[in-house]
């Protein structure tokens, strides 16, 4: 008995006979309780994978196992284990928020007494308790998205499949969504979500799969991915004393490629420096300690640009070559 709740084995999908492969031998293993992020550019096959996992699309080849059940053999059984939230939220007009949830609870065959308790609970969970009697179509985009998430939860599934849950949300709604997902993850749900925005996933996922043109390019924890790609990072320092010494210390440090003085000028006591460091978080902290121990006054020490962005570009570039 392994601990993977979602597994795919050589999963492939062709939309047209002899057409291109939308998904090419995807092997995916998601552990129980994981918060798994699917990253990839548009059209990479994220939605295809999620729809197949939800039993809405027939794989051309390969196997999917969810909670120990084969999707191919029991396409309907998995609906009880999986909550699916599509990338577009479908609105039924002339329906209030509670009716919306009640309807899907009925679809999941929940008995009336269970429905009476679960609907207010879920509305409470997604912070929509006071919108109970509001028309679904009149809710804001963020509220609709949260309601849709609540809908995916009516039957208390073990696995949540969320397709672009944060797309089209304003920053505030995005933060709320993120908090909600963390809460659900803490409740023990396995969450698989997709996004083409990497920072979004980096903030909450503990596992990431990078998908590109239907192929899984990399898969694992963020740290391991970073290592695997041997990613470096661009660091920016605001030095308030002895610029020359700081520059020399930096240049001598293992893993530092080159040092650039950003703001020009020749003030020996104050400068913005930028440097490229190869190595993990540990070496960055070592570098900072090294500078401070040697008496360099540092006002700011930060990473420039998005590490994941670069990681992603690097990984997908390899694939493209």
């Amino acid at each position: 008995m392994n601990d993977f709740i979602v597994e795919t084995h050589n999963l492939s999908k062709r939309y047209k006979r002899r057409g291109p492969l939308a998904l090419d031998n995807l092997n995916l293993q998601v552990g129980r309780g994981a918060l798994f992020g699917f990253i990839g550019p548009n059209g990479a096959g994220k939605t295809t994978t999620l729809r197949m996992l939800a039993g809405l699309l027939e794989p051309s080849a390969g196997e999917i196992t969810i909670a120990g059940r084969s999707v191919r053999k029991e396409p309907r059984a998995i609906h009880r284990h999986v909550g699916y939230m599509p990338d577009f939220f479908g609105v039924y007009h002339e329906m209030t928020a509670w009716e919306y949830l009640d309807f899907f609870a009925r679809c999941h065959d929940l008995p009336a007494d269970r429905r009476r308790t679960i609907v207010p609970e879920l509305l409470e969970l997604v912070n929509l308790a006071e919108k109970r009697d509001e028309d679904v179509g009149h809710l804001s985009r963020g509220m609709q998205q949260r309601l849709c998430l609540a809908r995916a939860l009516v039957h208390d599934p073990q696995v949540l499949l969320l397709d672009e849950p944060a797309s089209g949300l304003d920053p505030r709604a995005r933060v709320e969504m993120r908090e909600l997902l963390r809460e659900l993850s803490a409740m023990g749900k396995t969450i698989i979500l997709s996004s083409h925005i990497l920072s979004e996933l980096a903030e909450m996922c503990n596992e990431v799969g990078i998908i590109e043109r239907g192929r899984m390019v990399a898969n694992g924890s963020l740290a391991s991915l970073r290592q695997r790609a041997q990613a470096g990072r661009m660091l920016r320092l605001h030095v308030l004393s002895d610029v020359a010494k700081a520059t020399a210390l930096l240049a001598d440090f293992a893993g530092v490629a080159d040092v650039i003085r950003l703001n020009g000028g020749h003030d020996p006591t104050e400068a913005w420096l930028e440097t490229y460091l190869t190595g993990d978080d540990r070496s960055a902290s070592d570098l900072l300690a090294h500078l401070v121990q040697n008496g360099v006054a540092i006002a700011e020490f930060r990473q420039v640009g998005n590490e994941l962005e670069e990681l992603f570009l690097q990984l997908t570039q390899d694939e493209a070559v």
Partner: protein
Amino acid sequence: MIQLRNTKYAIRIINPIIVKELRTHMRGSRAFAILTGYLLILGLLAYGLYRITLASVQQGYGPGMTSQSAHIGQTLFIGLAFLELLSVCFITPALTAGVISGEIERRTYDMLLATPLRPASILWGKMVASLTYVNLLIMAAIPLSSVVFLFGGVALRDVIQAIGLLALTAITYGTLGLFFSALTRRTGRAMVLSYLTVLFLALGSAFIWAVTGAVTNQMPPREIMYVNPLSALASAIVSPGASSGFYGGMSYELLYLLSGGPDMMSLSSSKMPMSATPLGRPLWQYTTAIYLALTVVCYLLTTQLVKPVRRWRIGWRGWIGLLIVLAMLAAGSLVVFGTDWGSTGWREPPTPTPPPFPIVEKVVVEQVVMPEPTEAPVPPVPPPPTPVPTPAPVPFSASEHQAALENYLAQELLPEGETGFCDLDILWTRDSADNADIIGWIYCRTFRVTDGELIPGVGASTLAHVPMYWTPDQEWQIGGASFGSMRALAPPEVQQQLLDNPYDEAAGEERLRERARQELLGE
């Protein structure tokens, strides 16, 4: 209590979709506005028909006619039934063509499919919910339609048949809409295809029928009309023998044409050895069978179309269901078509005489010019308030009037500009002080003379009622001819007698040809 909800294998009767659809359908003012508007229109139409019928009935008959009320009842009933049928044809596709595609377009379909709800249950729920609304319209009109019973002239069986046909048409067209909705996955396209199909069934078939007749100059095969809901309704509710006449603005010719002409009428056709193949059964029975089959086929196809995965893979439940449905259809058609149900006995004519020449059937009564309904209702017999004592009527004798009647009918029924003759076979007469009623078979045919040869043209036969009245000029006058009032007028034993004494067409044909020879060729 009946357990409707927790059946594991069967499709649940009450499913979440129905609950949701009914909840949202009936919400807001739209549903009630449509219902109210529909009933108002029906009511206004009924009132209008009533006034027009009243006016023209008073115009067309002498005083003392007992069947006026029955005419009004029949006219109202037929008018309402057809209006309801038209509403069903127009409303149903609009209600169902967007049902599956709408879910897909709203992006809610995936969410539904990701629940344990079977696609077949989704379909079932959608169908029940939308048909409930159409049937609500039909049922809501029943109290209004029942006004016809105040006037009489309409049998309860006719009403039940009409409602049954309406409901069946609604179900069939609803299923068609669902099928196109699932097939095209776009509401617009589904709507267009559904309306085109309904248009084809209702008007296209009649058009093809008429064109076939015009091109071949023969009675077009009535099989073409099997799919037509209008002819089905006409054959189910128009009294046997009703074929011509103009009551209250209702043109029976239209119904006559729709119900498939003279040998398509249930009663007359089953009695008449018109052609080698007996055409006994009324059209609506065929239409019912075809529509049921169409509904089942469309529904089964749709159950496959709505599946996201494993389309066309039918499980054991599916096969058992399919077998049950097929068995039911087979049994149904066996009951209807295997046994000689419904016809009061189509008997093989004792001597199946093949027609001596190809009988060209055509609806001749189409061109009969009838009194304009717009004329002021002038009773043909103004009761003379003169002190002069009116002479007592001479006792009525039908045979004395035979020739006059036949000429009158020829004038009334034959197309203008054609020569032809009518044969009246009087079956029953009723005589009161100053008016009389005649019921009999009329057989008319046109003739042409080409190169000294007698060429028979179009012909038709029908049952008719001819009222006579005693004029102040002290003679019996023909009050008109009507073709719809047999049931209301004749006592039951007479109706039975009509049924039991089919018109001997071969003899009538011979008599007409004899007259034509004498009068046209001078032999």
